[in-house]
Structure formats: C-alpha cells, structure tokens
C-alpha cells in the first residue's frame, strides 16, 4: 500500500479536477511534474477517462433516459458554481445547493432543463430574475443573478436554510392562531413589498414559504403566477403537484377570468393562514375543475366550523381575506398586516413602520471591560477603555391599554472598537465578536436570556449575580445586558467557531417564581471558570411552551428551546401581554 500523506501539489490539483469533472490542461501540468510522478500523472489521465466514462453513463439519456425523478442527471457544475446537491425539483428544472467558487459562498442555483425550448427558457428565467431583483425585503428570497452558460440557463439566489411551511405543517401538525399570525405578519410584509415593486406574486402557498432556522419566514419562487394568466393551470391538467397545490390557493374571480390582482394575492394569503391552522383548504377539490365548481356553488369550509377553538378576532381576519368578493377583502397586504398585528396585541404603527430609523442604534454604548464567553464559556477580562456615550434613546413606545400590556424593544448588538451593529437573524458572528443585548420596557419587567447551541445545550446569560441590574429591569430607559458588575461592564464574547448560536429572550412584567426556579437550574458562566452547558429538562421546556402561549405543536414538551420558540426578534418595539418570548439565531461557522 502506498501512503500519500502529502501528494505533490500538481497531482492533488489534477485529482481534484477529475473529481469535479473540471477541464485539465494536461500539457501544462506535465511540465510541472518529474520522475515517478510522471507515471502517476499518466495514470491520473487514465482515471480522468474512467471518471468521464462513469459520468457519461450516469448522466446519459442514451442508455436510460433521465427522467425528472432521476437525480443521476444532476450536473456537477455550472459556470463557476460547484454543484453540491439537489434541494428542489420543478416542472422546468431543478434547484441545487451550489458553491460560488469566486465569492466562496453557498447559494441556491436554479437550472433549467437542457431539453426545453431554450429561447423560451432564457426569456422566462431572465424575466424572473428581473422581477425578483426589483424586490429587496428580508421576507422575500434575494436573487443574485441569471445567465446562460454552455447552453444552459440558470439563476442563482440566496440559499435559505430551513423547512417549508408545508413540511412544518406535515411534521408538527396545525399551528396555533398566534403562531400563524406571526407567519402571516411576515408574509403580509413580503407581499406588500412585492406589490410595491409593481408585481403580483400569484403563487403564494405553504410550499413556497421557507421557515429559516432562526425563525425568518421567506417567500420563495416567483416562477409561476407572474404572467398573470391562467394558462399554467390548464397546463397541469395531468395532476402534478403544481396543479394539486396551486388552484386551491387561487381566488374565485381568477377562475372566472379576471386578472390576478393584489386582492387575489390577499386571498391566497388567507388560504395559507386557513391551511396553517386547519391543514385543510377552504375550497377543496381533486382537480382544477372540481375546485372551480366548488367556488361556483359557493361550497366552502368556514374556519369557525373547522376550528371552533380559535379566537374570534383571528377567525374574522382570515374569513375577511377569503371573502369571495374581492372588494370585501383587505384592500392591501398592509391592511391585512395591521389587522394581524392588532390581533397579536402589537401597535400597528410600530409593526408596520419597518423603515423608521432605529433609535436603538444611537443609544449610549456601555463600556465593555469584561465578557461572558460563548463557545468556550470562560469569563474573559478585556482591557477596553470606556467608550463615549452616544445619543440618548428615543421615547418609549406608548403601551396600549390593559393591565398587563407593555411594550418591549430588544436588540442584539455586535460591538467592535467604538462601533456597534445590530444583528439580524441569520447574521454571522465569529470568534472575537462581543455581543450585548439592549432592552427597553414600558414597565418594570423580568428578563431572562438563554443561549442555546445546535445540540440544545443551554446556559443562562441573564440574570446573573453581581451585576448592577437585576430583575425586574427598570422601565423607560434602555438597559444594556449583561449589565455592569461593580464598575466592570460585561458583554458576551464569542470565543470559538462552529454551528449556530440561538439567543432566547423571555420577558414577563409579573414575577413568575417558577421561571426563577427553572432558570436557576441552568448552568451560569462564572468569572475565570469553565462552565458546562446542559439542556433544559423536558418538563421545563413544556412549561415554557405553556407560559409563552406560542406552542407550535401542542403536546410535545421536550426539545430544543430554539425549535419551540421560533418567533424572531423583531426590528422594532412590540406591544405584549403576559409572557413575551423571542429568539435570534446567529451563524457561527468554522
């Protein structure tokens, strides 16, 4: 046996190219090798032939025509993208996870079938890319570019890691009204931004929404409705997934020949919410004509009949979106959003005003001297000088009436030198980063901050002993956590890379002794001492779910916190009643 611990560079590089199916300049490489390596290079050339033969055999339509189901037809690369695996299949092509070798990042690559009408494909894909490029919104997938390479058309976009809402529904069962409304809020914002760009989405459905790890809901795929005619429906008379799924979301007036409008997107959003809480559709049918017929006969399921347990306000909102008369629906996605926000107890102004400058960004920066460490949890003493405080915080958002109602504005920041940047779900952190949470509440509130990793190991970040701030935190001014301890302000420091870090923030204006007892059971970082993280008990997680009122799948208690509480930390202040739970997940890759 020959051991090759350190193959000479040209040979390794040639081998990598063989494995990737990339072009090799044999003559050029031959000039770089000598002696025994020459013979090895000769055999690598044979191996290239062998690899090519197998690739041809696996991809060849000549021997066995590759069917849409046959993933062996997947290419190994396209342009400067290295294909890493298939993540989706469509009627006209596939979607791959791919690596952009120029930018060194992973993206989603949508490639058209080679056998299609190439001119039509080019036009369609480029059109889709242009449409998508007009929309920039955190809840809409971002497209980066489109091209035709080696005769094959593709477009590449943001790689969203997560699960479709349909998958979640199948796996976890029906959603509660509150969780569905939180999803609805995100999607109303997404659709509003699509409408603002002068587009109609036309294919809103649970299959087309990804729930990203970290909780962000992302509206995908503009491939279909966009041409605003019904031709595509007739094209699916054979009963493919598209046919089965799409007509069930189509507004009745569209069946009657009316063009797709903002109101028909609102209807589809209503169907999506109806489906999330019932796992059914308001108007059902096995075929397109059966659905159309049901609309004509006004045969439909009413949410109140299917889910008598849901709150009246939520039922009214969904039913309004589903009104057969488009004029009686919410006029815009924004109006739909406000209704959902009201139901959730949030002030619509703060929820909808996404573009408002955030006062939190100019809030006085606390001096950072010592850090609690994430990754390798050991207290870390820094030598940073005090930073000059910046401008004061904005006025707190007015709390709505009600004894337990309060507002909470929380943001997680990365602090480096004198600068700080607000972190959004999915942002990357790296070893050396210093993090702090800033919270402002309208009434004294008990706050608990838990850090959890991918394995469900958690530990408590707040409250900790020996800090200048303890529960309940004071109202009316921004409070930095972790808070200073005896002139030694703290922050959380990332010390090692790998995986993801989930931050869960719990708030309650009323003291809850059970919360204190439960969180007291979690390990806490200690100055100059290592701490081992431990998962919360199943009972504790179950209790949290009950208190938070955001349970996604009633029944199951145990599990990771980040999977139980998926509502993302919002970018603006929120009104809340009782216990408020939000999470933010940060990528911490190697």
């Amino acid at each position: 046996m020959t051991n090759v611990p350190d193959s000479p560079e040209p040979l390794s590089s040639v081998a990598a190219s063989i494995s990737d199916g990339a072009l090799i300049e044999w003559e050029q490489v031959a000039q770089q090798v000598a002696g025994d390596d020459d013979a090895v290079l000769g055999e690598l050339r044979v191996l290239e032939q062998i690899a090519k033969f197998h690739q041809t055999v696996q991809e060849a339509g000549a021997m066995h025509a590759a069917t849409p189901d046959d993933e062996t037809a997947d290419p190994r690369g396209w342009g400067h993208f290295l294909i890493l695996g298939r993540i989706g299949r469509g009627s006209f092509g596939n979607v791959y996870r791919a690596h952009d070798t120029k930018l060194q990042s992973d993206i989603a690559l949508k490639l058209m079938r080679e056998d299609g009408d190439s001119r039509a494909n080019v036009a369609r894909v480029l059109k889709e890319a242009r449409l998508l490029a007009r929309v920039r919104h955190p809840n809409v997938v971002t497209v980066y570019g489109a091209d035709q390479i080696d005769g094959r058309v593709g477009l590449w976009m943001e790689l969203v890691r997560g699960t479709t809402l349909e998958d979640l529904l199948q796996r976890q069962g029906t959603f509660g009204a509150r969780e569905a409304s939180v999803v609805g809020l995100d999607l109303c914002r997404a659709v509003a931004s699509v409408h603002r760009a002068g587009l109609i989405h036309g294919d809103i459905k649970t299959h087309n929404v990804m729930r990203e790890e970290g909780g962000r809901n992302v509206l995908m795929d503009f491939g279909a409705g966009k041409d605003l005619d019904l031709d595509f429906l007739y094209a699916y008379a054979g009963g493919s997934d598209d046919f089965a799924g799409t007509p069930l979301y189509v507004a009745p007036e569209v069946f009657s020949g009316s063009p797709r409008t903002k109101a028909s997107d609102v209807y589809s959003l209503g169907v999506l919410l109806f489906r999330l809480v019932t796992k059914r559709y308001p108007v059902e049918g096995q075929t397109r004509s059966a659905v159309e017929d049901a609309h004509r006969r006004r045969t439909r399921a009413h949410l109140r009949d299917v889910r008598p347990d849901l709150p009246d306000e939520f039922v009214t909102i969904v039913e309004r979106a589903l009104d057969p008369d488009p004029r009686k629906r919410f006029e815009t996605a924004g109006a739909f959003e406000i209704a959902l926000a009201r139901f959730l107890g949030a002030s619509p102004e703060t929820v909808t005003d996404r573009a408002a400058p955030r006062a939190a960004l100019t809030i006085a920066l606390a001096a950072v001297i010592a850090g609690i460490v994430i990754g390798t949890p050991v207290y870390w003493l820094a030598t940073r000088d005090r930073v000059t405080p910046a401008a004061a915080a904005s006025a707190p958002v007015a709390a709505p009436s009600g004894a337990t109602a309060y507002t909470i504005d929380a943001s997680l920041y990365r602090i480096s030198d004198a600068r700080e940047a607000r972190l959004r779900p999915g942002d990357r952190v790296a070893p050396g980063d210093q993090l702090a949470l800033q919270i402002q509440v309208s009434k004294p509130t008990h706050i608990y901050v838990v850090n959890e990793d991918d394995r469900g190991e958690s530990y408590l970040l707040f409250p900790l002993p020996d800090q200048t701030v303890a529960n309940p935190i004071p109202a009316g001014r921004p409070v930095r956590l972790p808070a200073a301890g005896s002139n030694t302000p703290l922050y959380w420091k990332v010390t090692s890379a790998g995986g993801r870090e989930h931050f869960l923030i719990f708030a309650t204006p009323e003291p809850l002794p059970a919360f204190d007892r439960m969180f007291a059971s979690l390990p806490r970082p200690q100055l100059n001492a290592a701490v081992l993280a431990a998962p919360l008990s199943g009972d504790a997680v179950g209790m949290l779910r009950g208190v938070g009122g955001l349970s996604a799948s009633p029944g199951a208690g145990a599990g990771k916190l980040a999977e139980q509480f998926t509502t993302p930390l919002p970018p603006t202040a929120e009104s809340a009643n009782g216990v408020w739970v939000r999470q933010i997940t940060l990528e911490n890759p190697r």
Partner: protein
Amino acid sequence: MTATLTFGPDSLMAEHVSSRAGNVKQASPGAANALTSVELLARARAGDEGALNDLCARYLPRLQKWAHGRLPSYARGALDTHDIVQDTLSQVVQRLGSFEPRHDGAFQAFLRTALLNRIRDQIRWAQRRPTDVVPCVRGSVDPSPFEQAVGTEAVERYEAALERLKPPDREAIIARIELGLPYAEVASALGKPTIAAAHVAVSRALVKLAKEMSRDKRS
C-alpha cells in the same frame, strides 16, 4: 407552463459541527433526513419489505447505469440489467450474514463488488452458452462499454489497484467517480463532516489509486 419549485429541507443542515467545550458530539451530514442505508439495511434484514424497497429505490438507478457500462452486449441476454441489479441487491441483503457496514459508503462498495462478481458470472455464462441470437464466437471477449472506452488493459489495472486500496479510499472512488454521487451524499456515505472533507477524501484517493496503478505498470 408554470415554473414552480419546491424547496426541501437542506440535506446538509448539519454541515457545521458545533465545538462547544465540554461536549463534542459530531453530527453527520444528512443525519436529520431519511434513514441511512445502514439503517434501512438493518430493517430489511429484519424482514421489513418497505426498507428493502427503499434501498432498491435508492441504489437501483445508479447501479443499473453502472452495470450497463460493465456488461458486454452479448452477455445481456434475456436477463436485462435491471433484473441483474435488483436480484443482486436482494441477495446481498439476504446473505449479508454478520457484515455490518460502518456507513453507507461501505455498503455501496460491498454492493458494487457483489454486482461486479455477478456480472462476471453472467459474462462467463454467456461465453459458455452457444447461441444463435448473438453471433459471438465462443471464448471471445467482446469488450464491455467500459473496456471499449478506457481499454481492457487499463480496466484490469484499475480494478486490481482499486482492490488494493484501503476501504475508505476505495469507497470514496466508488461513491464519487463510479456512482457520481453529489459531494453532499459522498460526505454522508463516507461519514465525512463537511463537503470540503469529502472533496479532499476523493482527491487523495485518486492520487493513491494512480500511484497503485503506476506501480502495476512498472512491475
């Protein structure tokens, strides 16, 4: 035509392995998804027909194409490649005995050996059998598509060298070069934590294989 795509869960969700001090547990790529072949195999051996069907569904298309390249046309006869592969797969499952593959890559390599033996039997059987359907001279060795493409001598050198490689290297070659699995699946099959690790494993195995082949040529 519509252009709707359904995104599934990413099979490489566990690509990044967390390294928090005090508890290091490696997650394997794809572990969160469907059962591994090793798990399916255990179920199939316990008599679970669904598991056997799932295994067939997983390997048949690739192995069928692989076998097609190895079988000379005269040896195909009435028994088509599909039957040969399916038959071999179910026999492998039944006769595995105490073989416990470490991961999917080991199972793939095992399956490939069984299939190659079966194809060699088929070729011998075809050569012994006088036939008027295929005008071949007894004892003639019409090359397989693989031999036609690469050359009989090179194929022999390749097979012999492949046989001498350490199992992990052999499995890397089979998974990526012969079966053409995407790197994500290669990583899963070889128990590698990342795509990059799978990529390196295949490249290194190729260099080792080339060295083995060149040794044969010199001797």
